[in-house]
C-alpha cells in the first residue's frame, strides 16, 4: 500500500474541508497517487461527512479520474475533434483489443494502462497517442499495432527476466 500519507496531507491543506472542496481534493489526491484508491475516497468522505457512494459517484461523473494505478506503460489516446476526424476511434479500439482493457483500466499484471484524453492542443500532429509521455504523431492503425506489439514483447521479456 501507499506508505506516505498523501490523503492526509491533501486534507490538511484545507482548514475546514467542505463538500464544495470535494473535486479539488480528489484532483490533488490523484495528482499525488496517480489514481483514486477506495481507501482514499472513503477517507475523503469521512472528513467531508459524505458517504463513500457520493464521493465515488462524483468521481465517476468526471472523465479525469482513474480508479486503478497507472501501468508501467501509460498510454493515452487523444479524442479531441481533430484526432477524431483523423480516425482516433479506430486507434482506441485497436489498443483496447491488444491490451484487453478498457479506457481507464490497467492490465492485471500492472504493465499497461490506457486513458482517453480530451484535446492535447497538438492538433497538427493528429491523431495523437502517447506512451509514458512520449508523443507518437499521425499514427495509423498499422503503426499503432507495431508500437504496441513492441511494447508487449518488451514487457514479456521483462517478466521472464524476473
Amino acid at each position, binding site marked *: 500500500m501507499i506508505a506516505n500519507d498523501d490523503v492526509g496531507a491533501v486534507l490538511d491543506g484545507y482548514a475546514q474541508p467542505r463538500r464544495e472542496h470535494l473535486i479539488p481534493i480528489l484532483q490533488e489526491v490523484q495528482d499525488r497517487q496517480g489514481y483514486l484508491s477506495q481507501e482514499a475516497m472513503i477517507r475523503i468522505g469521512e472528513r467531508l461527512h*459524505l458517504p463513500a*457512494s457520493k464521493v*465515488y*459517484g462524483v468521481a465517476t461523473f468526471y472523465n479525469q479520474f482513474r480508479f486503478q494505478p497507472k501501468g508501467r506503460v501509460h498510454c493515452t489516446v487523444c479524442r479531441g475533434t481533430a484526432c477524431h476526424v483523423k480516425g482516433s476511434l479506430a486507434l482506441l479500439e485497436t489498443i483496447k483489443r491488444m491490451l484487453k482493457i478498457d479506457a481507464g483500466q490497467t492490465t492485471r499484471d500492472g504493465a499497461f494502462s490506457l486513458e482517453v484524453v480530451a484535446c492535447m492542443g497538438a492538433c497538427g500532429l493528429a491523431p495523437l497517442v502517447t506512451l509514458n509521455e512520449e508523443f507518437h504523431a499521425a499514427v495509423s492503425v498499422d503503426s499503432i499495432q507495431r508500437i504496441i506489439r513492441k511494447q508487449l514483447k518488451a514487457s514479456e521479456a521483462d517478466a521472464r527476466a524476473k
Partner: protein
Amino acid sequence: MMIEMEVNNRKVSAEPGETVLTALERAGIKVPTLCHLATLSPTGACRMCVVEVEGQRNLVPACAFPAAEGLKITTHSPRAVRARKTIIELLLANHPDDCLYCMRSGECDLQDLAREHGVRDRRFCGGRNVHRLDVSSPAILRDPDKCILCGKCVRVCEEIQGVGAIDFLGRGSQAIVGTAFNQGLNISSCINCGQCVTVCPTGALREQSHLKEVSAALHDSDMMVVVQHAPSISVTIAEEFGARPGHDASGTLNAALRRLGFDRVFDSAFAADLTIMEEASELVQRIQTGGRLPMMTSCSPGWVKFVEQQYPDFRENLSTCKSPQQMLGAVIKTYFADKAGVPPEKIFSVAVMPCAAKKFEAQRPEMGRDGLADVDAVLTTRELVRMIRNLGMDLRALDPEPADDVLGERSSAGKMFGVTGGVMEAALRTAHHLLTGTELPALRLKPLRGLRGVKHARVTINGLELGVAVVSGLGNAIKLLEELRAGRDDLHFIEVMTCPGGCIAGGGQPFKTDIAAVRARMRALYTIDRDEPVRMSHHNEALQRLYREFLGAPLGERSHALLHTHYVQREVVR
C-alpha cells in the same frame, strides 16, 4: 388567504407556498409524476409532470412550480400530453421489455404511464441497458437495467434515512444508481430498510423473494409449516384487495393463511407482548441498577444494523431483547415444538412482515441454535399478496377465523407495535405495573401518538420522572444520536423505528402507499387499542402461561438464552 387559480377552465384554490402539483392533487386532477416525492423538495428531474401555464413560453413542471394567484393552467393540452409521451418513449428506448416476466408488472409506474399514453411502438432505439443484477443482499435486489434514473431511491436513502448507501454513478448513457465502488449491496452501508423499493417506480429495486422456499416447504409433507404475521399486516393487506385503507383484516388474514396451507397461524403481536415483558423488565432493571441509559428499542432490524456499523459506541444502549419476530421464532422451535410433539428440525417457520430488513435479521447467525434458524423465511406484505392471488383467492370472500391459540393471543398493546410510538406506550404500561403493582392511570399517551418523526414525553412513575423519546425515519434517529453524543442527558428510553411512521409504512408494504393510507392504518391500530378489553401485555393470559410453564420469569435464564441477543461491530463501506 387562499390563492385562486384557473385550471382547465375551472376554479382551483391553493394555499400560499404550495406547488401547483399539490393543489391539483387536492382538486382531484391527476398529473403523472415520476421523480416527485411528497416529503422532499422537488428536483424537477423527470419533467413528467409538465403542464401549460398561460404566459409561460415553455411547459413547466407542476411539482416544482409555485401556485400563484390568477395562474391559468392547462394540464392536458395536446402539447403537454405529447411532451409526456415523448419522455416515456425516451425512457423506454433502452429499457428491457421484460414486462411479462417482471415482478413489478401490473403495479409499475412506467408500465402504467406507457399504457395510459398509448405507447404502441418503440420510437427511439438506444442500446438496451445491460448491467449486473445485484443479488448480494439478503433483503434487496437491484436490477439496474430497469432503472429510469428518477433518483427517488437515492434521495430517500440519503435525505430521509440518512444512510447514503446508493448514489448516481458515472454519467450520460453510462449512468446508473449503485453503491460505493459499484460493489454488492451486502457490503455497503445499506440497512435493508426497503424504503428505496417502495418509492421506486419500476422493477429496478425489489425484495429478495422467499416465495419459492415457502412454497417448497408447504408442499413438503414431512414439514410442519407455521406462520406468524406482524401487527401491521392486518391493517394494510386488505387495501390490496380493494378495501379502503385502515380496514382491519385480522380474521380473514388468518383464514387466507390457512387456505394457503400453513399448519398453524400465529400472531407476532403475542411475541410483541413477550418483548414488552422482557424489555420493560430490562428498563426497570437498568434504572434500578445503574445500567446504561437511555435504553433504545431493538425491534427494528435496520436501526440495529445502523447502530452496529455507524454508532457502535451506542451498542450497549440497545435493549438486548430480540425483536418479536425472532422471539416468536425461538419460542416456536422450543416451547411449541415440544407441545406439538414435533422435532424443531421438522418445523418450517415463516414470518409475514412489513419489512425487508426482517429478511436480513432472520439470517443473522446468532438468531437460532443448534444450526437451526429460528425463522426460516420472511415474506413481505407484497409477497403474501402475490401468494394469495396466485391461489385465486380474494381476502374479502373469506370468513374471519381466529389465530391458533398458544401463540395467537395478544393484547392491544402488542398490536400497537405496528405504529411509531406504539412500542413506547406498550412498554410504559408494563413498566408502570412492574414498578408500582398498579396500572398506568391514563393509558393513552397523547404526545407519543401521531406520525411526527420526533415525539417526546415525560412520564412520572412512583415519583420517578422518565424522559422518553420516540423517533421514526432513521434520519431523525441520527439527529437524536448526535444530540446524545453532544451530552444530552434527559432521556431514559428511546423508541426507534427505521421507517417514517413505523411498520405501517414499512419497506415491505404495498406499493403506492400515500400518507393518507398510513394515517388510516395508524388510526386502525389505535381503534383496536381503544376498543379491546386486554390492553396490557402483562394481562395476556397465554403469555403468562408461557412464563409459568416454560420461561420462568422475565430476564430469567431461559429468557436470556432464547429471547435476548447481542450486537456486533460491523465493518461496511460507508
